[in-house]
C-alpha cells in the first residue's frame, strides 16, 4: 500500500513542478487577456505622459522623453535557426538595429519601442507557440515576420482569432489572398510576390523582342512558383515557351537540359533557380557556346552566384528589388535615399557583403507598423486600420500603398531589371 502512495505522490510532485515551470515563464499569473489590454495599460498612466511635452519645451523632450512613457511592444518572429536561417538572421539583425535607432531618436510619439524577437527555428509548430506567447504574455501590438511562407500560413489563424495585425516577411501570395479570393483581414506582407517579379521579366522580354523562350527551372517550391506564374503571364504577352526543362537543386551538370533547350532554338533562355545550380546553368551555357542571352531569377541576388559562375556571370540579366542597384538609381527615384541609408547602416553594423533583400523586407515590416502606430496609438484594431490605409510609403522593397483589396501594396515599380557587369550589379538597359 505504501508503495502506491509513494508512487502517486512522487508523480504528483513531478507534475506540479512541470506546471510551476509553465507558470514560471509567465511571471505572475496573468488575468484573461483581451485584445484591448494594451490600451488599458497605456491609458492607466495618461497624466504624466500627456503633461510632459506640454510642460517642457520641444527641445528638452527630444533628449529623454522616451524613458518616461509606456513602451510600445512589437513582436517579431524570425527563422534565426534551421533551414530558413539565411533569411531569419538578416531579419533579426535589422529588427535589433531599428529598435536601437528609433529609441535613440526619441521613439514613436515619445514612446520607446520594444521589439520582442522570437526564433521560430524554421518550424511551423514552434512559430504557432511563439505567436501565442507574443500575444498572451508580451501583449504585443502587432507581429512582424515570420520569415517563411509555411510559418506565416500556419499562424494566420491564430492572429486572426486574437485580432492582432501580422505583417509577414515571407513571399507566397497565399499569405494575403485566401483560397476563395477574399483578403485575410489581419494579415499583410511586404516582400514582392512572384507574380510581380515574373511580370517585370515578361515585360522586359517583350520590349526586347524575345518571343521564343527556353525555360529551365529548379524542381522545388521556388522553381515551381516561378514556372506557374510565367506560364500564366507569357501567352498574353505573346511569348511562346518552346522548351521547358527542370533540374534538381543539387545537380552539378545541366548540359543535357541546355542541349535540348538549344535544339528548340529559342530567342532567349530563362533560368528560375538559386545558386549554386543557377550558376552552373550559366556556366554550362557558356561552355556549350550558346549565343542567346541568359536571364535568371531574383534568387541570384547575392554574391554566391558570381563566385560560382565566374566569368559566365557577366551579362546575366535578372529581375530583382532595387536594393542591389541603389547607388546606380537616378536621384529622382523615390526609394534611393532610403536604400542608401539602409545599406550604409546595415553594412556599418554587420560588415560588408552581409546585405540582403531579406533584411530589407524586415525593414519594411518594422517601419510600416511604426508609421501606422504614430497615427493610431496603441490599439490593435486602430493599428490594423492605419496599416491598411498606408499610402505611398517609401520602403526598401518598393513603394507601399495598402488597401482593403491589396494587403501586399506593391506595384511593378518594386522590381527592376539588373545586369551583372564585371562583378557588379548595374541597372539593365
Amino acid at each position, binding site marked *: 500500500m505504501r508503495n502506491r502512495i509513494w508512487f502517486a505522490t512522487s508523480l*504528483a510532485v513531478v507534475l506540479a513542478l512541470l*506546471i510551476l*515551470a509553465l507558470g514560471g515563464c509567465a511571471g505572475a499569473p*496573468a488575468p484573461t487577456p483581451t485584445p484591448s489590454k494594451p490600451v488599458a495599460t497605456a491609458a492607466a498612466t495618461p497624466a504624466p505622459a500627456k503633461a510632459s511635452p506640454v510642460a517642457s519645451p520641444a527641445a528638452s523632450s527630444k533628449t529623454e522623453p522616451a524613458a518616461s512613457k509606456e513602451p510600445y511592444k512589437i513582436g517579431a518572429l524570425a527563422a534565426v535557426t534551421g533551414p530558413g536561417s539565411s533569411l531569419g538572421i538578416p531579419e533579426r539583425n535589422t529588427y535589433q538595429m531599428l529598435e536601437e535607432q528609433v529609441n535613440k531618436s526619441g521613439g514613436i510619439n515619445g514612446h520607446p519601442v520594444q521589439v520582442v524577437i*522570437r526564433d521560430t527555428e524554421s518550424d*511551423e*509548430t514552434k512559430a*504557432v507557440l511563439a505567436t501565442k506567447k507574443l500575444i498572451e504574455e508580451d501583449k504585443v501590438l502587432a507581429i512582424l515576420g515570420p520569415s517563411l511562407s509555411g510559418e506565416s500560413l500556419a499562424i494566420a489563424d491564430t492572429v486572426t482569432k486574437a485580432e492582432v495585425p501580422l505583417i509577414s516577411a515571407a513571399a507566397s501570395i497565399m499569405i494575403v489572398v485566401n483560397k476563395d479570393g477574399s483578403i485575410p483581414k489581419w494579415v499583410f506582407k511586404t516582400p514582392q510576390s512572384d507574380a510581380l517579379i515574373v511580370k517585370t521579366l515578361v515585360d522586359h522580354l517583350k520590349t526586347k523582342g524575345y518571343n521564343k523562350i527556353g525555360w529551365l527551372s529548379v524542381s522545388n517550391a521556388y522553381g515551381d512558383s516561378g514556372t506557374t506564374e510565367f506560364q500564366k503571364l507569357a501567352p498574353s504577352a505573346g511569348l511562346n515557351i518552346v522548351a521547358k526543362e527542370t533540374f534538381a537543386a543539387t545537380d552539378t551538370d545541366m548540359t543535357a537540359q541546355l542541349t535540348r533547350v538549344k535544339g528548340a532554338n529559342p530567342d532567349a533562355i530563362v533560368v528560375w533557380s538559386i545558386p549554386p545550380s543557377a550558376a552552373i546553368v550559366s556556366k554550362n551555357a557558356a561552355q556549350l557556346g550558346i549565343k542567346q542571352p541568359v536571364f535568371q531569377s531574383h534568387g541570384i541576388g547575392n554574391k554566391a552566384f558570381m563566385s560560382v559562375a565566374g566569368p559566365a556571370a557577366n551579362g546575366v540579366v535578372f529581375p530583382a528589388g532595387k536594393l542591389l542597384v541603389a547607388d546606380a538609381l537616378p536621384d529622382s527615384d523615390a526609394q534611393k535615399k532610403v536604400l542608401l541609408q539602409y545599406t550604409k547602416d546595415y553594412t556599418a553594423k554587420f560588415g560588408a557583403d552581409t546585405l540582403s533583400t531579406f533584411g530589407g523586407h524586415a525593414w519594411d515590416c518594422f517601419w510600416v507598423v511604426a508609421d501606422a502606430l504614430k497615427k493610431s496609438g496603441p490599439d490593435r484594431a486602430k493599428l490594423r486600420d492605419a496599416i491598411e490605409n498606408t499610402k505611398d510609403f517609401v520602403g526598401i522593397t518598393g513603394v507601399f500603398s495598402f488597401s482593403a483589396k491589396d494587403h501586399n501594396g506593391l506595384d511593378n515599380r518594386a522590381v527592376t531589371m539588373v545586369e551583372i557587369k564585371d562583378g557588379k550589379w548595374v541597372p539593365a538597359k
Partner: protein
Amino acid sequence: MERNGIGKYENYITLGALIVVMGSLPLLLSNSYHLSIMAFIGINTMLAVGLCLLMGYAGQVSLGHAAFYGIGAYTSGILTTTFKMNPWLAIGVAAVFTGVVAYVIGVPMFRLKGNNLAMGTLGFGIIVYIIFVEMRDWTGGPSGLTGIPSLSIFGFTFDNDLKYYYLIWAIALLFLVLSLNIVNSRVGRALRSIHGSEIAAETLGVNTNKYKIQILVVAAMYASVAGSLYAHYLTFINPQPFSFKLSIEIVVMVVIGGLSSVWGALLGAATTTVLSEVLRGVIPQFLKGATGEYEIVVFGIILMVVMIFLPEGLFSGSVRIVKSWRREKESKQRTVDETAIVEPSSVVAEGHLAVEDK
C-alpha cells in the same frame, strides 16, 4: 510489470491522478499560450505512446514515425477541403487508411532486423515526405494546404485553445488506457518476449511477425489521429512538420521518458516540449539579444546529462531512485545503529532531476 517497477493498481492510481490534474489544469492556466503548449504535449504524447509500444515493448526501432502522423494529417486535410467530408468521419477514415498503409509497409519491413530495419523505416519516412511535396494537385505541394475546417459537433465548435485542450487530452488519455491494456495483456507479454529474444519467442510458439505488425498498425493509427487533430487545430498543414526531424524528435521523447513504460512516453513528451519552450523564454534573460542559437545547445546538453545519469529514462529512473531511497530508509529504521550508506550516483541524479523539472 516487473520491468518498469510499477504494478497494475499503481497504474490506475496514476491514471486517476492524471485525469484529475489534466481536468483541473485549465483553472490554473487561463492563458491560451499555456493551453496551447499543453495541447501540443497531448499530440506528442499520442505519437510517443505509439512509438513506445513499438520500440520499448516490441523492440522494433522506427525512424519514420512522422510519416504516419503526416498521412493522418494530409488524409484529414484533403478529405475535408477537397471532398468536403465531415471532419470526424475524415479522422476515422484517415486512421483506417493509415492503419492499412502500416500493414502493407509492415509485412515486408519486418523481414529486416536491427539497423536494417531502422534504415528501412527511415527510407519510408523520406518517401512519404517527398510524396507530400511532389503530389501538388492533392497536397498543395511545398506551399501546403490551407482552409482546413475547425472541428465541431452538434453545433458546438472547437474554436479556442481550451476546447482543443480538452479534446486532445481526452483522446490522449484514451490512448494511454488502451496502451496500458495492451501492455498488461497476452499481447503485451508476447511483445516483451520478442524484445527479449525473438528466436526464443519463436521457439515458444509466439508468431513474432504477426505481433510486430499488429503493434505497428496500432502505433500508426495513434499517430494518424494525432496528425488529424494537428491539422484541424492549426487549420493549415505543409510538408515541413512531417519531415525526418520530427521522427527523430519522437524517438528522443520516448528515450528520454523511458522506453520501458507507457508513462515514460507521456513524461518524455511533456519534458521535451516544455523544456524547449522554457529555454526559449529563459535564455534571452541571461544573454541579451540571444534569440535561437543557444537554446539548441543547452537543450542538447540537458538531454546528454539525462542520458548519462538516468540511462533508463526519466520515468523508470525516478522510480528507481525513489525506491532505492525508500529501501535505504527502511533498512535504516530496522538497524538503527548502522550508518546509512548514501549512494553518490543517486544523489547526483536526484539533484539533477530537480533542475530538470523546474
